[in-house]
């Protein structure tokens, strides 16, 4: 991936698009952990791609690309979340997933991985993204602290609390 980042930094558009395609699943999963509306997920990803293209030259080390990209995504998700908060009062429960009662905000194809949503929605909102970054995307707690701009100890304690939450749910 570092080779592609360097090529993209030199202005190779194909390399940049290849990078985005390679990062697509990560972008989708992380945005889905944050937002509850498919169109918002799409908007956040689109804005992230454009921001990343615009600022890629500012990235100092290619090795930090993933952390940097996800940080941009989180910023965009936060903006959208704040903008839409008053309109989003629907809570997606595992029971509804099990009965096939899906909210209108997601297409059936997009939420076809029910196990994924089932697990995420079992967690409290504040722990979902941290779980996704730690377990789903395999970032370290230090990287997550950097991405979310919170203390590393906070990341660790939320992971611990999230696991307790899952145990209680069972």
């Amino acid at each position: 991936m570092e080779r592609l980042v360097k090529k993209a930094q030199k202005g190779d558009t194909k390399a940049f698009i290849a990078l985005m395609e390679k990062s697509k699943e990560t972008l989708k999963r992380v945005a889905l952990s944050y937002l509850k509306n498919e169109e918002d997920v799409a908007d956040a990803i689109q804005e992230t791609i454009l921001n990343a293209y615009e600022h890629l030259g500012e990235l100092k080390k290619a090795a930090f690309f993933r952390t940097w990209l996800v940080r941009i995504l989180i910023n965009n998700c936060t903006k959208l979340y704040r903008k839409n908060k008053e309109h989003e009062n629907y809570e997606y429960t595992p029971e509804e997933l099990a009965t096939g009662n899906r909210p209108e905000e997601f297409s059936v194809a997009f939420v076809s991985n029910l196990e994924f949503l089932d697990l995420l929605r079992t967690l409290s909102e504040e722990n979902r993204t941290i779980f996704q970054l730690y377990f789903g995307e395999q970032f370290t707690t230090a990287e997550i602290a950097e991405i979310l701009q919170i203390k590393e100890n906070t990341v660790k304690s939320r992971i611990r609390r999230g696991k307790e939450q899952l145990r209680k749910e069972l």
Partner: protein
Amino acid sequence: MDKQYSDQTIKEILSAPVGESDIIDWKMQDAYEKIRKMNKTETVQKKRVIRSIGKGFAALAAVFVLVFTICLANPVWASGLPLIGGIFERIQRLWNFGELSEEEIVSLMTETVSETETEVEKGYPYQASSKGYTFYITEYYATNQGVFLGVRIESEEKLPGFYEPAENNMNILIDWQTLEGIQLDEYTYEGVLRIDMEEVPEQFELDFSIREVWIDYLNEEKTAHNHKTLVLDGCDFKIPIERSDKDLKMIPVNEIGEAGVGMKSVQISPVEVTLNLINTEEEEGLVTYPVVLDAKGRKLEPGSMNSPDVYAIGDSDISTLYVYVCEWDEYMDIKGLALEEDASLFQNALEECALYKKVIDTTEK
């Protein structure tokens, strides 16, 4: 609930692909389109790869003209090519482009008749193999804006993913250009690849290499799509090309609106509409986005990833074309209306925001 969430289980669940989303795919492609517009240097780089004009064309041209003539003169042979070739004919029903007449398509296969004239031996001069995959270029169609190649991929091992006859579970990109096609069986995929060119000469030799193939496939469990990337070497082709000017229509416009945006002409081939736009304010930073609607107000889709002013005709009614050129940011605000069922909503918004608009009757002689 009967699940046990160990760390490993959580990791497995949260790192699995989520489902496909048309709107996410569409918005990502939209972002790429904008990026390509911003970076015109890519087109220059691409041309450097594929341009090798004129070398040794005469000798090779003689070969393929002969082959083509044989196919036309022997319809039984031409239609009896199910194994390899005839890709355009098979793909057109799925394709995003208009239908081509048989005369527009040039076969790149050779056929040798036995001495007793009872057998025909087929040859495939444009084939190359790398890492267990063989690529055949079997035919082409060249218009003024690009070359369309019929490409067949045969794999020594089974292609990845779940294969269902007549279902299109697989998408393939060759060097990030879509190979519009279909999986024929567990080992074979064929499709049509568009190679963008700013201007296709009448005759030239196409210097074409396949470096990277990206395969998107439905996993065996049929739960999600996965990706596989092949990095290849030695898949280089030099293909003699002769442009087809049949049915190519050029409609001159030659006007510029008050905003400094206008159009020189519109070209229509059997498969694509090409706008030749004018933007006198480009150096001042005016970024525009053109949209073409058909006679029924339906949006024509881009025919090319790298040439933003080329549109696929497909099943559109192009008897009348509505051309709108909007300021980029303004278009971004209304683009979502293109997805509405009522096409008039999008067209009304375009009417309001366009810096330049033009209605073209393509039936006029």
